[in-house]
């Protein structure tokens, strides 16, 4: 919030003045109020592997993160460029594979990758869109320095928190919305529905029927699935609600079976179709891949998009962006060592205490090592894992992430954050002005994942 010299940064000016006039005790009381609002609306998530914790709250911090219009425009251009490149890359990888032929990315990193789906080779989804919904994770390291951490081209989650955080802020501090010009995010569900409907398959007759496929009530993100279905005004379905009838995917309704044209699935590729992928899956729909390939349903995001946000492929993103857009990437990639390469592995092992090491296919902050905060023993144990399966890991330097203020018992204190803006792709790319700011609540921590004690805050993009 502050710049060197002790004055607030420009976008924070109005907020800063307002804050100075508030009673700190009142603000702390508001934190409890926010928690009550979240509990009551049922904004909860599940943490796997915890007994009796099936419904937890993500801590919410009531100081907004504020981004100026100028900063945002720059970010948005970079994100758009990247998302266009991702879709072009996916189309290429599943067709002519020009980028491999051009020698810009090694063949084995694609074809030996579990996220690469041979079933998608030669198939082009409706509208040529592979990744309809993208959540680009971004961190800031300086005034004009942004890095992309991850691209999240499969099923990015957390958008319900973006919406609920805003809703909660408007309920608690309506006056802030009068004195600041904040760009709205609440039309996201509507934009999402329209964006999906515009990519209906050619087999669709009449108005496209959209549905959200959830793994069910016990899934960690069930609240979000229900929330989105409700806000979009579309049916929320589970695998057991669907079956293939006459070459179309249909749901069991009170009036018999009704066909679905566009399925926004929040179920992983592996579980989508037991006839094509994991045979034991009960979360998917037997035969849906045949319907898909016959052009009778749109699946969003398309199966096989994981190849574009794989952590091993990530390290090639600068080449990928340049190859498909003909321009240098506007947003930086974090320098990445691929441990599968002998030189890199050597470097990583020698510098393990300075690096962040991640599993190539991991997510949610699990199975990673943050060198600078780990103990000697933890580093040594991790080094053994690295040596046993080097190709399973990548390593990155620890960036000096920007901090933003959060409310703590004694007032305000700085914490590290990242940002996930949400992007919708149809015949155009729409970036919602805002996103989910995740914050590492532990002092000094760099891990923002909700499963690892991270919190969230409202993210404002100012109109200027």
């Amino acid at each position: 919030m502050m710049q060197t010299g002790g004055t607030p940064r420009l976008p924070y000016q109005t907020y800063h003045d307002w804050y100075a006039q508030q009673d700190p005790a009142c603000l702390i009381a508001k934190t409890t109020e926010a928690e009550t609002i979240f509990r009551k609306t049922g904004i909860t998530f599940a943490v796997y592997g915890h007994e009796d914790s099936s419904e937890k709250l993500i801590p919410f911090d009531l100081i907004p993160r504020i981004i100026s219009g100028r900063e945002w425009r720059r970010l948005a251009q970079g994100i758009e460029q990247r998302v266009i490149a991702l879709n072009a890359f996916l189309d290429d990888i599943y067709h002519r594979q020009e980028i491999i032929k051009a020698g810009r990315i090694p063949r084995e990193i694609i074809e030996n990758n579990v996220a690469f789906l041979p079933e998608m080779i030669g198939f082009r989804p409706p509208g040529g869109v592979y990744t309809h919904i993208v959540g680009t994770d971004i961190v800031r390291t300086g005034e004009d320095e942004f890095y992309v951490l991850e691209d999240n081209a499969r099923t990015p989650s957390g958008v319900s928190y973006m919406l609920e955080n805003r809703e909660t802020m408007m309920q608690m501090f309506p006056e802030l919305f009068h004195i600041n010009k904040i760009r709205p995010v609440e039309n996201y569900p509507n934009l999402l529905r329209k964006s999906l409907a515009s990519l209906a398959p050619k087999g669709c007759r009449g108005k496209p029927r959209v549905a959200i496929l959830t793994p069910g009530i016990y899934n960690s993100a069930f609240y979000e699935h229900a929330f989105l279905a409700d806000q979009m005004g579309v049916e929320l379905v589970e695998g057991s609600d669907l079956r293939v009838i006459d070459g179309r995917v249909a749901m069991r309704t009170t009036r018999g079976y009704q066909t679905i044209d566009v399925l926004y699935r929040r179920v992983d590729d592996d579980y989508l179709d037991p006839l094509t992928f994991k045979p034991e899956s009960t979360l998917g729909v037997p035969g849906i891949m045949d319907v898909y390939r016959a052009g009778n349903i749109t699946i969003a995001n398309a199966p096989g998009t994981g190849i574009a946000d794989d952590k091993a492929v990530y390290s090639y993103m600068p080449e990928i962006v340049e190859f498909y857009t003909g321009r240098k990437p506007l947003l930086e990639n974090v320098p990445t060592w691929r441990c599968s390469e002998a030189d890199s592995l050597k470097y990583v092992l020698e510098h393990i205490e300075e690096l962040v090491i991640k599993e190539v296919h991991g997510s949610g902050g699990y199975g990673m090592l943050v060198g600078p905060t780990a103990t000697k023993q933890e580093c040594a144990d991790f080094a053994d894992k690295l040596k046993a399966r080097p190709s399973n890991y990548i390593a990155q330097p620890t960036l000096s992430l920007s901090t933003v203020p959060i409310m703590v018992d004694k007032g305000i204190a700085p914490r590290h954050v990242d940002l996930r803006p949400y992007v919708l792709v149809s015949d155009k790319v729409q970036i919602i002005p805002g996103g989910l700011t995740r914050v590492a609540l532990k002092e000094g921590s760099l891990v923002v994942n909700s499963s690892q004690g991270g919190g969230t805050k409202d993210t404002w993009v100012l109109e200027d």
Partner: protein
Amino acid sequence: MLGRTANGLYWMFRYIERAENIARLIDAGLRVALTRTNFADEDWDGVLQSAGVRLNYGDVHATLTSANAIDFLLRDTSNPSSVLSCIESGRHNARMVRTALTRETWEATNECWIDLKRLLVRKAHSADMPEIIDAIKRRTGLIRGAFHGTMLRDDIYNFSRIGTFIERADNTARILDVKYYVLLPAAAQVGSSLDNMQWESILRSVSAHRSYGWVYDGEYNASNIADFLILNGRMPRSLAYCYEKAVSNLGYLAQQYGERHAAHDTAERTHASLRNRGIGDIMEYGLHEYIEDFIAQNNRLGQEISDGYRFYQG
């Protein structure tokens, strides 16, 4: 609408209705215990029977005590019809059909669950009972209010209402079934304090001890009470009222979907018989037999609705 969603809505509202009715039964039981000097623990037997859980109780407790009976009805999760179990099941169904509910209805349900879970975490002291019973009635009342005030009058609304009325009719019929002997003319020594007590307990368990006085000019007798609970179309927990509503909710679905099912015939037939029969006629046929028939028929209707509208569980 998904058959699973219709099923979830139907059961969500059955469970919420049941939670409220169980609270009423406990309330009536407590009231009798307070006002009668010779009240014994065994008197909870009838309350457990009315709740349909006398056998379940026997599986858990060897002896019948007032404290155990109340605890079993209120918060024993091995009892599927305890208030706590009902609220859990109701909220579980609500969570599953979250998209079919307005935010207000969902929040009222979720808050009901949060609040009652907190209240029922420990065995209740008798001093806390008024607060607990009151909280259950208030919380379920808030769900009903949010539901009525905000829900679109579509098939979602009608499936929910059908769940409420099938459950309510079942509960009222069970109360009558357990106490039918109190209402038999032979046993009725009009005016005795025992009878008055028993009758009042019946009326209290359907929250009708006041309204009864208004409707029948304070004339307490068995046949009037039976008439009130079975045939009086103005009494919101009577069988006649429940069926009038269920028929109208089913009628909406038939019109909206353009098809009728066996359930429509069953509901209309039962409703007609409730409208056309006098209480004397029913007493002559046999109150007990009549209620038994009704409960069986009510269950059949539930099954027919489930079949006709393709209910299924996830």
